[in-house]
């Protein structure tokens, strides 16, 4: 290492803009992928738990396929495939779609697990008092399932933040790509990769602590 700490601080100060905007891009990617993926995933979870047989099989094939494919492959496929069939997506859009689809398969499994853990008697009771499926879902199933879904969902959010680094491979200017560009300019590999790692760690550590908090709040006191 042929540079001093003050030189690193100086380089860091020069690069503070790109790092901050990279961090912003990472957070924006992760947030939009999580929101999209959750909406999609709840639908998948419902289909897995209560769908008619062909819909259930379709949802099962969808989740199993996505869960068996590495995220990097999904991201690369999401980047190359749409343009081949004439859908023009920017790398950012393609990456967010790939992450959202990945997220939806995980959320789908979490939602399915939570829904199937609800005793059948609850649904029968709702039917007996004449609730429609929509009403049963919003006022019986969802409140019960939410307690189980939330902690696992927070974990998935951390997964997505980590997976968002893969978008740097298709040229999305996230925190990792910003760091790599800075390194390409000043050759300070060690401190800037370390800084990137530390920033990702901080985000995920905060999410992990939040997850623990949610877990404490959602467990039924015994």
């Amino acid at each position: 290492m042929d540079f001093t700490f003050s030189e690193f601080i100086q380089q860091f100060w020069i690069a503070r803009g790109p790092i901050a905007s990279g961090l912003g891009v990472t957070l924006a990617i992760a947030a939009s992928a999580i929101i999209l993926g959750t909406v999609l995933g709840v639908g998948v979870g419902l289909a897995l738990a209560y769908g008619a047989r062909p819909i259930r099989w379709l949802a099962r094939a969808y989740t199993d396929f996505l869960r068996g494919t590495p995220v990097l492959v999904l991201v690369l496929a999401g980047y190359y495939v749409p343009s081949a069939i004439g859908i023009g997506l920017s790398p950012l859009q393609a990456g967010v779609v790939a992450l959202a689809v990945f997220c939806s398969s995980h959320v789908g499994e979490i939602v399915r697990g939570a829904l199937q853990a609800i005793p059948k008697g609850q649904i029968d009771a709702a039917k007996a008092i004449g609730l429609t499926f929509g009403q049963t879902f919003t006022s019986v199933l969802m409140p019960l399932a939410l307690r189980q879904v939330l902690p696992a969902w927070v974990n998935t959010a951390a997964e997505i933040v980590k997976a968002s680094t893969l978008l740097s491979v298709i040229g999305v200017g996230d925190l990792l790509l910003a760091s790599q560009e800075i390194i390409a300019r000043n050759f300070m590999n060690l401190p800037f990769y370390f800084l990137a790692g530390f920033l990702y760690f901080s985000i995920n550590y905060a999410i992990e602590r939040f997850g623990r908090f949610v877990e404490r709040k959602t467990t039924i006191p015994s």
Partner: protein
Amino acid sequence: MGYTLNFAAVWRSFMPLLEGLGLSLMLAVESIAIGMLIGLVVSFALTSKLGLLRRTAGLYVTVIRNTPILVLVLFTYFALPNVGVQLDEIPSFVATLAIYSGAYLAEVFRAGLLSVPVGLREAGQTIGLSKMQIRTSIILPLMFRNVLPALGNTVISLFKDTSLAAVIAVPELTFQARKINVESFRVIETWVVVSLIYVCTCAVLAAVFRRIERQLSIPR
């Protein structure tokens, strides 16, 4: 649209794809084997009575589990040579994935260690086994049976993480796929076939683990 499917280019390159899969599996086996050793040692540290040991192990697990693996891979390959640790692509990736899987497997094993009833440990003490004997012939075998489902999931997820080796130009499955993609422009075919190869491999791994689980389960 005007895109007609044509798998010829992918079939022509099927051998490289299989070689890539072989390399992916080799990377997974090597790094998970080392990772299991790390995980085992760390899981004992995590359940140790010594506060310092427990905290150090906890720090390792927390830091690794909250850092993206791509950052770790790039750090090992591009940044560590600056402090004199220079590794080729494959050893560098195996080392990274081993350290990464160590943290995840440590958590799996920790849960397994805690699931072994205290009574069995006490029974071992009563018949005069040493601490080491209790570990190797009572706790470890029971723990392994208990952790098998979680171990299977973790191993499958680590196998999928070998795809990241493509980023540092290790010629494994994803790398081969990208090569076919840019050489032939058979975009859809390439990614469909490669995804299916991954999905099938994961399904086989899952089946193998289910089988081991069944074989080792207590007969009723």
